[in-house]
């Protein structure tokens, strides 16, 4: 399953770091962060709990870039 979220982040490299952090989160199959459109699209593993996974994603993103937001 694939879902798109609006995000907020200030720098392009931070967006790349968020992408990397999201990809490494359990339950996420693949993810892309588009800095220009401020959107994140996440593909989840089959059977993953979307809400819980996204909470973890946000936590992991905050770790690599404190100044970021994902609008869940």
């Amino acid at each position, binding site marked *: 399953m694939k879902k*798109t979220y609006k995000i907020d982040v*200030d*720098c*392009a*490299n931070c967006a*790349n770091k968020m*992408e*990397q952090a999201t990809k490494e989160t359990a339950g996420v199959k693949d993810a*892309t962060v*588009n*800095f*220009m*459109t*401020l*959107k994140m*699209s996440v593909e989840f593993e089959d059977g993953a709990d979307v809400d819980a996974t996204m909470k973890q994603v946000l936590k992991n993103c905050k*770790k*690599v870039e*404190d*100044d970021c937001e994902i609008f869940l």
Partner: protein
Amino acid sequence: MNKKQKKVLIRIIVSAVLIIALQFIPVTGYLQLLLYLVPYLVIGYDILRKALKGILNRQVFDENFLMAIATVGAMALGEYREGVAVMLFYQIGELFQSYAVGKSRRNISDLMDIRPDYANIERDGKLEQVDPDEVAIGTLIVVSPGEKVPIDGIVREGSSSLNTSALTGESVPRSVRPGDEVISGCINEKGVLKIETTREFGESTVSKILELVENASSRKSRSEAFISKFARVYTPAVCYSALALAVLPPLISLLLGQDANVSTWVYRALTFLVISCPCALVISIPLTFFAGIGGASKEGILVKGSVFLETLSQVKTVVFDKTGTMTKGTFEVVGIHHSPVPEKELLFYAAHAEAHSSHPISKSLLRAFEGDGGVPDLGNVSQVEEISGEGVTAMVSGKKVAVGNKRLMARLGLASMDCHEIGTVVHVAVDGEYYGHILIADEIKEGAKDAITGLHKAGIRKCVMLTGDREETAQSVAQVLGISDVYAQLLPGDKVDKVEELLSQKGKKEMLAFVGDGINDAPVLSRADIGIAMGAMGSDAAIEAADIVLMDDDPRKISKAILIAQKCIRIVYENIYFAIGVKLICLLLGAIGIANMWVAIFADVGVMVIAVINAIRALMVKNL
């Protein structure tokens, strides 16, 4: 500028004024440090705070952390002015970047500002504004002058001219009359129109386009992937070499019994840290693609993602479908030959048998029949059977009618007569007897010849035309246009095979584009390296299958799209080489002590500003 940016701007001005004022205050020692700490903290407190947080989260190669180390280090070495300046210029760079990015974001979203906010419905004689999502198919909506058409439909009352420039880049308005189809997203310029909707809002052209634009670039280009990989390696590599630069040379000097010169080497190491920030690269590449995609959409060329812009720039072979791409696809009946019955009767059979098909040829038969004063009665038609690539058989007024090409006649065991004129020949058989053929001709599009010349100018080596039409028709069109490779009489499946064959012939780095009008060629569109759908307004299948959608049906847009892609990729490479080049040179100069902190600041902020300005050039595509 938004609030955040304004705040940073004020901090920049304050600390810049302070730093200049400090030049004239003759103090030394700790007092001087104390005074310089004021502008330093004004400009850099948030960076220092983020750096601390980064350390807590074990993010060592975080830009804030690097900037903090570099500036604190410079201050510790007594280079107060440099320390503050690095922070100051870093913030100026960040501000410029966020302003430029924000501005191009807004520019491009304005460009695609085609979302209708409401639809007008007449209720009890009064107009009422409703959410377009709530309008059911078949509702009569009213569009006043100056308003956007919210939903696809057919004009029932009123006439006007429609401005389609937001959709197609075409500035000449289109006039519409009752009976004409209109697509959502156009702006009504003159009269009031009453439109019967034919789709739901979600399925309307405008929604499809917005969906496409908003989901564009979820697939990243290879250059973008390269840059994010590069950034992940580059920053740590530079940091480790900075560490090595600070430690090894002094250590070696000590071992050799010379003066260690620690502060010189630490200063050089700090310049490394300033250069280590990958910002210029990381921002300029996606920004270039974004600007390129935005510029293209202004011209009515929708690109589904940066990866397609990249592929398009490498296209060397362009394969077209003839009908609807190079020719108008609006067929007209130009002759009826060898018919044993009156022409009108033959048209009656052909038009009725084909009445259920939306193929342009079928429509032209119906038009000719109606133009001749006939009134179609679909109640007469039953047992319609379509034979792909051959034609149709049906029962019309109790007679078994077959309408199609030579192959269909051959299947029925009938000898058909060839036609000596150029055009599409539709053979008709009634009750197992050959009734002659109808000649239908298609006009070559205006600009089709220029389109081919333009493609060759854009560096396309091979243009190939595929068509289901007869050899003679195909050859005559090809001759007019100047295309040498033509494959005619192809069934829809053959087109895929042909494209596969062409794909296997070309070099690995040379891409093949297929251009079709979206009718029956979705499989080919998705099979080619890059699929371009043309005149796609209203054709969902094409919008879905294609990678690039040309909103109107001007074939010259094909070379334009390729030129835009080439320009965009050229800028991407310029930025990659320029940014990496300058950074490497500055690193080298910094290591041997020629480049000081100021050069490092240029390598960081200056390069980023130049790269961003260069990236925005990709938006300017009007005169390509």
